[in-house]
């Protein structure tokens, strides 16, 4: 039991068996979240620190609650209000946290590969909570848990993802994880937001939103980072919402029991009309609950490995 590696850096590093172990463990953890007394002792006597160089609501809070539900001592550091603001390097900051006896460091950073560059220099386990445009493995795991609760298997399922693929670490992690379990991922977005060679990651590049979502078992919208509009990757919100949004008509092309996901935060009326966000097929709020469960599972399995060594 437990993960093979000291760290959770990305879906790239997980085996299909490890992914399934995390998802099965998360199902159990979800029972804790829904119980009257949200407390386990799995992380009692352990310390967990979140180190965030980027803003976050749900990822950070869900990690914090996950560690607290399991009884750990937990603390938070952000880039503002710490020595990071004085120009301390990532490695020095991480070594400082490591030297305080920290068991797990949960890290978000705007640069791809930042957690990879420090992981083998620390005793603590590193959990990647999002690194630049590379990966966001616990987001993919919570998305997969949400699917797993509705599918008996990932094998042969069609997953459609629409939006800014280029800048999305959520897409990369989902594409890698879902491919490992046999699902078929289709992606679509403006060509200016489609990275070269994405098809080599085992995804199909669709030719339109309709082509992407047709016969999908699950449909995922991605946040349009509106600041990108300044770099002219798309001409206007009006045009984006007309040609690239997941409208009710588009969603109707998916399978009848398909459901709609979004990693949040959502720009209502841009990538999703509010009517779609709130529709019966939307499982967006459940994704948030599953985020806590998956993060409890990840912390539990990483700690199990540390305890076994």
């Amino acid at each position: 039991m437990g993960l093979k590696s000291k760290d959770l850096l990305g879906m790239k590093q997980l085996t299909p068996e490890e992914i399934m172990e995390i998802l099965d463990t998360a199902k159990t953890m979800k029972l804790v979240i829904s119980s009257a007394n949200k407390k386990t002792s799995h992380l009692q006597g352990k310390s967990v620190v979140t180190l965030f160089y980027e803003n976050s609501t749900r990822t950070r809070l869900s990690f914090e609650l996950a560690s607290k539900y399991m009884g750990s001592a937990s603390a938070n550091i952000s880039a503002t209000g710490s020595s990071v603001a004085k120009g301390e390097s990532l490695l020095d900051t991480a070594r400082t946290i490591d030297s305080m006896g920290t068991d797990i460091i949960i890290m978000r950073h705007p640069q791809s590969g930042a957690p990879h560059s420090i992981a083998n220099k620390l005793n603590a386990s590193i959990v990647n909570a999002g690194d630049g445009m590379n990966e966001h493995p616990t987001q993919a795991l919570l998305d997969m848990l949400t699917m797993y609760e509705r599918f008996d298997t990932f094998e042969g399922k069609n997953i459609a993802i629409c939006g800014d693929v280029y800048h999305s670490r959520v897409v990369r992690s989902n594409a890698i994880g879902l491919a490992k379990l046999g699902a078929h991922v289709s992606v679509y977005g403006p060509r200016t937001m489609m990275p070269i060679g994405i098809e080599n990651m085992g995804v199909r590049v669709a030719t339109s939103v309709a082509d992407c979502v047709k016969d999908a078992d699950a449909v995922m919208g991605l946040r349009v980072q509106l600041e990108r509009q300044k770099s002219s990757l798309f001409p206007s919100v009006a045009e984006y919402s007309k040609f690239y949004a997941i409208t009710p008509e588009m969603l109707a092309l998916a399978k009848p029991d398909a459901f709609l996901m979004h990693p949040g935060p959502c720009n209502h009326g841009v990538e999703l009309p509010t009517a779609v966000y709130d529709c019966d097929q939307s499982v967006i709020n459940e994704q948030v609950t599953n985020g806590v469960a998956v993060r409890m599972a990840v912390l539990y399995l990483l700690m199990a490995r540390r305890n076994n060594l």
Partner: protein
Amino acid sequence: MKTILKNVKIFNSDKTEIYIEDGKFSEAFDESSADEVIDGKGNNVFPGLVDMHVHLREPGYEYRETIATGTAAAARGGFTAVCSMPNTFPVCDNAAVVQGILKKAQEAGNCRVYPIGAATKDIEDTCLAEIGLMKEAGIVAVSDDGKPIPTAGMMRKVLEYASDFDIPVLNHCEEKSLGEGAMNEGIVSTSIGIRGCSTAAEDIMIARDIILAEYLGVPVHICHVSTKGGVRMIRDAKARGVKVTCETCPHYFTLTDSACENYDTNFKMHPPLRTEEHRLAIIEGIKDGTIDCIVTDHAPHHQDEKEVEFSHANNGIVGLESSFALSYTYLVKTGVIGLDRLMDLMCYNPSKILKLGRGGMAVGDDADLTVMDLDNEFVFEKDKMLTKGRNTPFDGWKLYGETMLTIMGGKKTYEKLC
């Protein structure tokens, strides 16, 4: 001072002994009159190598490298002449800085240093640097290397004005409006989420510079070519008679962008490592003569500038001490080219392009030479390097072509033979 180097195989010669008197190759003299007799132990002697593209970092960045340490590394790599790029602090854009570099190089005495001046003042692309005055002080070329000369208009002015002084122009080709990535744009950059710079960005500026050189009828030299398209365009231009020359670096024919997969910043440089298709095209360009020179783009950085997030890390790797061995092992031992062509690439062509007059081994020529062991494999170790930089991707590589001895102007500048 009289020296005899005996028991050696001499490049392009049947002789086994070399005679040096007062810093010059000389006629044979009696061993009893020699001040020193060196046993070359059957190793190969080549003319001193020439690297027309290095960053010695002084003045201003002495924490990365000094002229003394950089030229010591050059000597260890078999070089007796290097050309220093002007992106120092202050920038080498005036005669005073040129003179300062020459003085420091003279004091160090490890290797001839030929400064390259900035093409534009402060490498800011707004006005021409004092190319004429810098030539009087000793520059052999101009370049804004590290940065491209971004507009066609400024490039034209630089080419025209430099031609008045018969000064070659070397350009780092990269169309920055296509985005400033940290590695090659492609499958690997997409997979690991790093912003890529496209081969198109390099190709577009190479095309521009060829067009300008052809239109104006002046020479242009393309720095560190890394792309298939670049090689093809330069080949075609040469066939038309355009005065274009170019260089590449050992990393472009030994490595590909897949080396960046683990975010190791010792594989980060500009232009970036490309894909296998481009690596093979560079080898083809070396083989058919399209590529004129092998240079190192030796770019020492401090540990603190490399042990950071991949996108934040400085560009560049050190190369002076691995260049010959990599080139010999991957080009000559593999049968791509022979030793004659290797010497064109690493000595005669750069000397010719910049009119340095190096590479001669006739009686009366400056006694610049290097002795290489071509027969025994050795392990290249970063901790044995003489450069201050430790940013090499080749640590632990098994190579052939270890430097045994380097002599510059009759003086030993590096010695492993004992």
